[in-house]
């Protein structure tokens, strides 16, 4: 019926509702891929968005050139003192950061011994990465090493004193013989248990203890120079405080959260009291209490180390926040999960470890990491009790009359900001990746 299309509407053979003229060609569809499509979809989908995009671009144009000029183009990369950086046309003074880098990194740690800090940091970084890398082989082993062997060795390497309280070992000949007998007996017991393949966990713990005490005795023969914690500082101490806080706050927080939901009234009461008390005061108060008031109540020789006090304070403080985050996760686990676990005949520990916690913790990963990031930044507060953490080192370095100057201070703070951003952003990205992996099953 090709011919009919050319006849006019008046043609009697055609019903009037049949179109007689061709419609105009439609324009080709707009591309849904390619750079232009991306621009339109993401930057200019409507008039409001277009305005926002243009304003955003103008803002970047306004901010970025002077920033790039200050940070890179006009920056002073090397100089012996601050004279060049004090000139009005000078930009960021990276020479100052280079000059002071040792101080920012290690504080007053003796420079001939910084290899000990480096060794500890590198070992810690390797273990952490290994432990956190998804699908890495032997992750469990890395985690075990990180939480048991590593702290003991790190303590020994950093302080130079034996990582076992050898002062407690008997010094008289009879006492030493008794100690040796005890070690041999322990060794025999552990070997027997291991051989019988019963209580192997205990056997391994006993072997660990023997190795630990022997390590302590051997360590004193190394004669590493002692480095008191009053010399520790910089990035090293910031990382130390953050690591100790993170490592202790999660298990302690889980324990407190479980205690708070426990059926046992005393346990519940104690957990609630600790959580509410510590959560009710600012971190600064906890630190000042630990640092200034604690020595008043205990005899001189008992008074804990000046660095240990804020470490305990920070760990305790973040643990109670962690407890509340974990409690949120525990409450999100449906009752059916508990009932199902109980009907399978699991004990309370099995139920908690195998059914409840895995679900509860995955739910609150964002909250946990949020706490970690907050903790990481809160480590700067230890400066108020006289610990030279990284930010305090930057803050002190800028007062050096050789370097002092307004742009030099700014450079120091920019450097600090970059450092904190890298760590916090890294933690945030890692947690997002873990969330995606763990929720893969649920989002199907």
């Amino acid at each position, binding site marked *: 019926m090709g011919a009919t299309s050319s006849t006019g509407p008046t043609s009697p053979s055609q019903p009037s509702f049949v179109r007689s003229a061709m419609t105009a060609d439609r324009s080709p569809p707009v591309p849904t891929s390619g750079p232009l499509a991306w621009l339109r979809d993401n930057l200019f989908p409507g008039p409001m968005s277009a305005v926002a995009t243009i304003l955003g671009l103008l803002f970047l144009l306004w901010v970025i050139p002077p920033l790039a000029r200050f940070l890179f183009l006009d920056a002073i990369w090397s100089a012996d003192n601050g004279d060049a950086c004090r000139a009005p046309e000078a930009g960021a003074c990276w020479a100052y950061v280079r*000059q002071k880098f*040792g101080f920012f990194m290690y504080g007053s740690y003796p420079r001939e011994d910084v290899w000990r800090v480096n060794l500890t940091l590198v070992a810690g970084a390797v273990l952490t990465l290994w432990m956190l890398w998804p699908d890495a082989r032997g992750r469990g082993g890395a985690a075990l090493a990180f939480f048991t062997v590593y702290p003991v060795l790190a303590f020994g390497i950093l302080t130079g004193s034996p990582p076992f309280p050898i002062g407690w070992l008997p010094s008289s000949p009879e006492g030493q013989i008794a100690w040796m007998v005890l070690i041999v007996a322990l060794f025999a017991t552990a070997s027997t248990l291991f051989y019988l393949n019963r209580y192997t966990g205990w056997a391994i713990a006993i072997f660990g203890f023997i190795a630990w005490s022997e390590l302590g005795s051997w360590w004193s023969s190394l004669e590493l120079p002692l480095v008191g914690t009053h010399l520790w500082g910089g990035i090293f101490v910031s990382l130390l405080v953050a690591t100790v806080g993170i490592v202790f706050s999660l298990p302690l927080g889980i324990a407190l959260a479980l205690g708070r939901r426990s059926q046992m009234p005393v346990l519940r009461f104690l957990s609630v009291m600790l959580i509410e008390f510590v959560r009710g005061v600012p971190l600064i108060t906890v630190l000042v209490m630990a640092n200034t008031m604690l020595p*008043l109540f205990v005899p001189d020789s008992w008074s804990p180390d000046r660095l240990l006090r804020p470490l305990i304070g920070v760990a305790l403080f973040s643990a109670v926040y962690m407890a509340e985050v974990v409690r949120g996760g525990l409450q999100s686990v449906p009752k059916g999960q508990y009932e199902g676990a109980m009907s399978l005949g699991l004990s309370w520990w099995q139920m908690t470890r195998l059914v409840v916690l895995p679900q509860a913790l995955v739910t609150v990963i964002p909250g946990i990491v949020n706490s970690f990031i907050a903790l990481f930044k809160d480590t700067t507060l230890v400066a108020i009790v*006289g610990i030279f953490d990284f930010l305090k080192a930057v803050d002190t370095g800028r007062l050096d009359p050789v370097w002092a100057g307004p742009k030099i201070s700014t450079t120091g703070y920019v450097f600090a900001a970059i450092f904190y951003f890298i760590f916090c952003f890294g933690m945030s990205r890692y947690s997002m990746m873990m969330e995606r992996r763990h929720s893969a099953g649920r989002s199907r």
Partner: protein
Amino acid sequence: MRTSILSNAIAGAVCALMLSAPGAFAQGQPAKSPTLDKIQKAGTLNCGVNPGLAGFSMPDDKGLWLGIDVDLCRAVAAAIFNDPTKVKFIPMTAKDRFTALQTGEIDILARNGTWTMQRETELGLLFTATNYYDGQGFMVRKKLNVTSALELSQASICVQQGTTTELNLADFFRANNMKYEVIAFATSNEAVKAYDSGRCDAFTTDASGLYAERVKLANANDHVVLSEIISKEPLGPAVRQGDDIWFNIVKWAHFAMVNAEELGVNKGNADEQAKSIKPDVRRLLGVENEFGKFLGLSNDWAMRIIKHVGNYGESFERNIGAGSRLRIDRGVNKLWNKGGIMYAPPIR
């Protein structure tokens, strides 16, 4: 420097609680000091310092503490151990410094503290000596051709808000019947910036602070610190009350350094000077008499200080004087016989 009422109250309560150790000893007996005993047992001296004040106490690039307050603690350590490195420098905030001294956490507080009556009577401290006479001064541009603060009539002056500095400024201008315009800022940094950008004719704070701020300016040499001082800020180390021997040790460590400068004994010539026939020098260096014994120290205590740390003049020049970036004029801190007020009782 002011402290909060709370920390004063805490420090006051603490010293009321503390039983003062008996410091008395029979005449002619070698001294016994609980603080000294504790330090000798521990092998280190705990010294509370400012966490960062150029010229007074500050860690350098390697984290080694430098400054005139630091030198004082090193001098005491040298006198006790013959080793100026046996000091633990504990950075103290203005808030907790007195409490730390009272609790025994630190043995000396060398934190550019102003010696005031209230601190000795209410807080139970003892200032051993003044190791730096500070006071409020003015900084102006050289091109203004002002040589005295009395020529600052009608001037605009940058100052930090809410400090004794601001009050002293008002007192000074009222006492001299001069008019001025005050431009106050929340932080010292802002005030300096405003002065540098030309918003005011002069900037005022403690004189040592003026020199420290001057090096931060774009062109330090265009500015001059006027010689007038309008307030008294005697800075010195403090110890807790109740251990008089320890008080004496810290006090005489400073006096030994001042006397050494007066007698011309310095780091370089100390050994040679020990052979001197001058009785003053021989007594100072422990060649004659037994002054060290009554401090509970060895007889060459002052010799050790001078050999390891140097005399007062050397310490001053190295940290805040001509040998440092601050280039603070000795001014009133010159020896009494050179026109200043730095004076030490004789060792005899």
